[in-house]
């Protein structure tokens, strides 16, 4: 399968191309951990969720929908809407709003419907 068709845009993009900054910290990060989002190091507050970390980082989307490729960000933050789905440590469709960050965690944004058997690229 053509790589550029199944994984366009962010897999090849050099950075995370921040969207409009919708959230800012109440106080500077202390006690931070570092995870990787699409291979880029991103700092997070220990004990927060992956969804909060992505919104602080200002990613323009955490997934593109499998139906139309439309961008989505977390919507409800309490586990009901499933908009915040991302790949975490190689397992797809994890709810970012219910998953706590961990140092060294590997998060990948989802690009439509991922081919089920394709090995995850670290």
């Amino acid at each position, binding site marked *: 399968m053509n790589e550029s068709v199944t994984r366009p845009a962010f897999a090849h993009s050099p950075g995370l191309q921040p*969207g*409009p*900054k*919708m*959230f*800012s*910290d*109440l*106080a500077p990060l202390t006690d931070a951990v570092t995870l990787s989002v699409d291979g880029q190091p991103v700092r997070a*507050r220990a*004990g*927060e*969720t992956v969804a*909060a970390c992505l*919104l*602080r980082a200002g990613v*323009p*989307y955490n997934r593109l*929908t499998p*139906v*139309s490729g*439309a*961008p*989505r*960000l*977390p*919507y*409800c*933050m*309490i*586990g*009901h*809407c*499933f*908009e915040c*789905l991302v790949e975490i440590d190689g*397992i797809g*469709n994890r709810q970012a*709003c*219910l998953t*706590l960050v961990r140092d060294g965690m590997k998060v990948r944004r989802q690009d439509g419907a991922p081919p089920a058997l394709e090995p995850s690229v670290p």
Partner: protein
Amino acid sequence: MSINAPLPDADVIIVGCGPAGMAAAVTLAEAGRSVIVLDMQPAPGGQIFRSLEANLCDTSPAGQSLLAALGPAYRAGADLIRRFRAFSGACPGIDYRPQTTVWEVRPDGTVGWLQGMNAGYVRGRQVLLAHGAMERPVPFPGWTLPGVMTAGAVQTLLKAGHLKPSGRIVLAGTGPLLLLLANQLHQLGVKPALVGRTDRLSDSVRAARHLRPGGLVPLVKGLGWLGRLKLAGVKSVTGLENLAAHGTQNVESVSFTVGGKRQTLPCDLLIVHDGIVPAIDIPNAAGLRLQWDGPNASWRPATTPDGLGASTLPPEMSAGPCVLRVTGDARRIGGADAAMAHGRVAAQAILAALDHGAGPSADALRAVGKALSVRPFLDAAFPPGLAQALPDDDTIVCRCEELTAGELREKIRSGFRNMDALRGETRCGMGPCQGRSCMVTAARLLQNETRAAGCPPTFRGRPPIRPIPLGAVATLSGLDPRATIRLTLEDKPENASEDTVDAPAE
């Protein structure tokens, strides 16, 4: 050889660790009963007391100003969380299992759980569903764009992420939570560009006749919020209609109608809220009877005053009487005080069912009535606004499958005139959220097109109601040996049918 039924893992399994679940768990543990509490979140408190323990320990100036902004209603959960923690780990006591999702509940007390990559079943002699509420789904043009979030989501980011919104912020909708959030943001130095309320003065006037003495405190609180926002110079409108969010990759502007005039505002973050409704995903999939709550325009489980649900499953599909009770906002929207009061009532009823105690005390029942007495006023003052009118044909109803109201209307008109047929034909409700966001709108569209009345129909809910990794299914623990059939390679159909396969036509 006879196979025995599995023994119960606990006297009571409680789903959800918010005010109702914690209050019930503490009451049961005090009476010496064993309790398992399953909760999605990492710490006790539910949505209202989210991250309260951690935030109380935060002595930094930013932590202190956050606590001040979240107010006394947030800190009020501290005592209950402390009592809950005192019983967790004790034996018998509360076996608290955080970060655990529930993907199946059966009327006989069997509960399917998932924690990380481990899954299984646990059984309780009684089960209490205290899984809480969700924000009312509000389909409007552009509601799927990045930059549209619910008020609850923004509050969660404040409490658990220490993140405050920035940029041009518009709040739209109705209900106490919208005004509360606007005030909290203001206290943290965030000034929204607009608070647009769908409710009108006439709603408040109509609501006044529902005012009971118990409603005076919330009324004074609400007027205080409004007054502070006005003093701060936050622009506010009432009677907002026809909200739409515009943009291609994210929200760039919002438009709406007020007093017949269309207005457009630049916007980076649109925060919407249209009141909260009981989460019915678990009760619906468990086969509990639901009823329509007219004043709150939502489903809720049909229960006795002490929370006992009624199974709609035929007797042959259930191994005994229904042992499911529902409490807190999952049973009926009432807020934290009502949830704690009813959690105690439900626990007392459970103790009676376990041959211990005389059932709910008059005091406990009175406390529920008192806490709920303010609801008729709030329901009338903040009627559903954003979700009141059915969406236009171009508006997305099912966020997961990106189906519009027009597509659903067309299918209904062409003959898919019940919820499951509509789901099978369109995939509406089949995506990851399993209908949590679209079901009520699909049901209302169906009723509208078929001119039906009464309780709107639901999708038939089937487990797993939340995604569960195949690896976890492969190693499920706690299976019922009576219901387990082990297939071997010899049982594979191609082995058995080899002789009867027709020779290929050459």
